[in-house]
């Protein structure tokens, strides 16, 4: 895990080392252990290293034997041992024990197809001296980030956007279309980012720069194809357990100690249990404990700690903590967010680092691929009812949704029907599963200024996303379509980045995700929908697989999605100064993104204690985070409010 950056000048001029230095210095949090540069004529590569594998021999940028290839690499190739053996059999000689050198030789052997050999999480760039080609690649599911900018003169890339914005002559402007997308889907559709001219290499894609021409290519995307033959449930469960065990085993490869995040839910508990099977040593686990019982899962965490006998540490998270660290959270997230949920993850990685750990395994990705989210259940009920809209019995199932939202549970069936009804035209939409969420989020655009509304009025975010759907998508089961939207978009753009990589790397911690092993992902994509959600029982097969490995109470507990307090974090007795500053009419006006009076009324609603709903809370978080982006990235680049 590291930070990477690079410059390729299209014209003959040599790369200015000071610029490269500037790019890598601003992301040193990603790699505090070592720093390296490679400069040759019009190419410059930089690397900030977090040493995890081959501590002595893994210095980067690294070259192959004849120096025809140079690589700067962020991430891990977990199956590097096996790929290395394969390459040795083909005659390659290795001078280090690192996975980085495996990338170099695999590229030499397989060219751009080398990525198909890798089981890992990566973002890397290879400079090929023979063909004068720059090759960039990002892992299948977008665990590791990679951004770039192209001008007629240069191609620049980096692990984080701030490296690119630090360069002279780069416009620091919010992309209003991206903002519209965030206030619809919660994420900008890649390659778009929150900033004009800065692009993200989407997950599962590679990029080449050759003779000044930039080309991107998909090498992988999620594909759902259930099997034709009947397989016994227990056989599936046994196969899954073996796969997960091996995925975990590979992710324990490290020359430094590895810990685990423990939420108290099924996914992280199962991963912790599997680690225990692999290592047999007492594992160090880490958790967040919320003061607010609405969000706290510590009783379950404690039960797992006792059951699996881990050495446990927890960080207590209060409303005030979230408000205090939020500017830093947004500095690292590099985009507006509508939830404060990344903030506790920031505190958790800090705890891990303070305990001298820099690698953790987590349960991320399971809900996406094994059917754990409530949105899947909601879609199933809505469609079940939508095809018989006159049914009086079918809408009663709506009461089964969202047990952790008291406001919703108090509603009459008549209102639930009104909120979750499926209009005839909705049934035809490719986004049927996500329409209620996206329509609710889109209502937040009421806070946009007239200028932003004028700029985005004719923009249709759904049309842009629809254009990117795979050809087979319309024929997929409703559950698979919803899974594709979650795993293909929300997972990389929000869960793995804003909540994942960025919050962990803020404190130089690497997350590893056994559920996102490509073999596990392919296995899950090939399961019948009924094994993911059996009637309304989510993650059915995973529960079957975990039955003998996790405490029964964890197996049976109702699903509790990870959430964090919002409005209360920003408005309280000792609220941080930046809240009033950023929400003041003068600040809103000078930012130009939001409408001063409309925001003023929302702020008043919070001050009066009248704001209780999801929509108001998302609006507040979205406005504060956007104002922080404006303030820390555009108006005063590099400004930091806190020293968290």
């Amino acid at each position, binding site marked *: 895990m590291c930070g990477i950056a690079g410059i390729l000048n299209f014209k003959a001029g040599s790369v200015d080392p000071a610029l490269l230095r500037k790019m890598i210095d601003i992301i040193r949090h990603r790699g505090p252990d070592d720093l390296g540069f490679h400069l040759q004529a019009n190419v410059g590569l930089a690397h900030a290293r977090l040493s995890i594998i081959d501590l002595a021999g893994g210095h980067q940028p690294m070259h192959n034997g004849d120096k025809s290839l140079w690589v700067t690499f962020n991430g891990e190739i977990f199956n590097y041992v096996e790929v290395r053996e394969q390459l040795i059999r083909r005659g390659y000689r290795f001078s280090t024990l690192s996975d980085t050198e495996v990338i170099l030789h695999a590229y030499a052997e397989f060219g751009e197809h080398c990525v198909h050999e890798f089981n890992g999480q990566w973002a890397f760039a290879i400079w090929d001296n023979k063909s004068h080609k720059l090759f960039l690649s990002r892992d299948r599911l977008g665990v590791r980030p990679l951004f770039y900018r192209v001008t007629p003169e240069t191609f620049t890339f980096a692990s984080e956007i701030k490296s690119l914005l630090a360069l002279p002559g780069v416009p620091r402007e919010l992309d209003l279309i991206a903002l519209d997308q965030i206030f619809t889907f919660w994420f900008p559709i890649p390659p778009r980012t929150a900033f004009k001219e800065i692009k993200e290499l989407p997950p599962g894609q590679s990029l080449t720069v050759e003779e000044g021409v930039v080309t991107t290519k998909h090498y992988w995307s999620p594909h759902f194809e259930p099997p034709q033959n009947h397989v016994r449930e227990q056989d599936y469960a046994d196969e899954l357990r073996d796969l997960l065990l091996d995925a975990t085993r590979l992710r324990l490869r490290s020359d430094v100690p590895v810990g685990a995040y423990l939420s108290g839910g099924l996914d992280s508990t199962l991963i912790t249990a599997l680690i225990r099977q692999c290592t047999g040593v007492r594992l160090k686990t880490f958790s967040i404990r919320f003061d607010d019982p609405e969000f706290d899962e510590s009783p379950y965490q404690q039960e797992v700690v006792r059951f699996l006998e881990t050495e446990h540490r927890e960080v207590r998270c209060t409303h005030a903590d979230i408000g205090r660290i939020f500017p830093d959270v947004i500095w690292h997230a590099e985009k507006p967010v509508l939830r404060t949920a990344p903030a506790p993850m920031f505190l958790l990685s800090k705890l891990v680092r303070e305990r001298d750990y820099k690698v953790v395994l987590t349960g991320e990705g399971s809900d996406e691929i094994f059917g754990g989210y409530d949105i899947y259940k909601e879609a199933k009920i809505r469609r079940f009812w939508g095809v018989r809209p006159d049914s009086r019995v079918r809408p009663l199932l709506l009461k089964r949704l969202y047990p952790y939202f008291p406001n919703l549970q*108090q509603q009459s069936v008549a209102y639930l029907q*009104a909120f979750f009804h499926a209009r005839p035209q909705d049934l035809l939409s490719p986004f049927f599963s996500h329409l209620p969420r996206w*329509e609710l989020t889109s209502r937040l655009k*009421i806070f946009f200024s007239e200028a932003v509304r004028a700029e985005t009025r004719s923009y249709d975010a759904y049309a842009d996303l629809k254009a990117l759907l795979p050809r087979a998508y319309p024929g997929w089961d409703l559950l698979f379509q919803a899974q594709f939207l979650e795993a293909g978009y929300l997972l990389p753009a929000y869960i793995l980045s804003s909540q994942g990589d960025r919050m962990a790397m803020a404190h130089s911690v690497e997350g590893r995700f056994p559920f996102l092993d490509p073999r596990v992902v392919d296995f899950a994509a090939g399961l019948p929908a009924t094994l993911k959600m059996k009637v309304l029982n989510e993650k059915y097969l995973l529960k079957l697989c975990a039955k003998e490995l996790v405490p029964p109470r964890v197996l049976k507990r109702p699903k509790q999605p990870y959430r964090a307090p919002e409005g209360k974090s920003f408005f309280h007795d000792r609220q941080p100064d930046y809240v009033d500053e950023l929400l003041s009419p003068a600040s809103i006006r000078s930012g130009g993104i939001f*409408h001063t009076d409309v925001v003023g009324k*929302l702020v008043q609603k919070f001050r009066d204690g*009248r704001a209780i709903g*999801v929509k108001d809370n998302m609006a507040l978080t979205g406005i504060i985070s956007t104002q922080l982006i404006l303030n820390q990235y555009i108006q005063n680049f590099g400004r930091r409010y806190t020293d968290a």
Partner: protein
Amino acid sequence: MHNYQTELRQFIVENFLFGREDKPLSNSDSLLEFEIIDSTGVMELVSFIEQKYQLELRDEELIPENLDSIDRLVRFIAQKVNV
């Protein structure tokens, strides 16, 4: 003497639309159809009515027939107050 219509309109426009009416809300407009109200919005509306008019709303009264437009709200509240 309460002017229900004015008070309810003011509450809805301020509280749910934050003062921003792209198209003036008519008294018969459906709060659901125009996406003015969501699940929490119903609770906010009920709390407002209960506090403002000193009424107690029963669970079975919390239905769109009573609450889903300014006209319906006015009719419903007037009925409750007069009982």
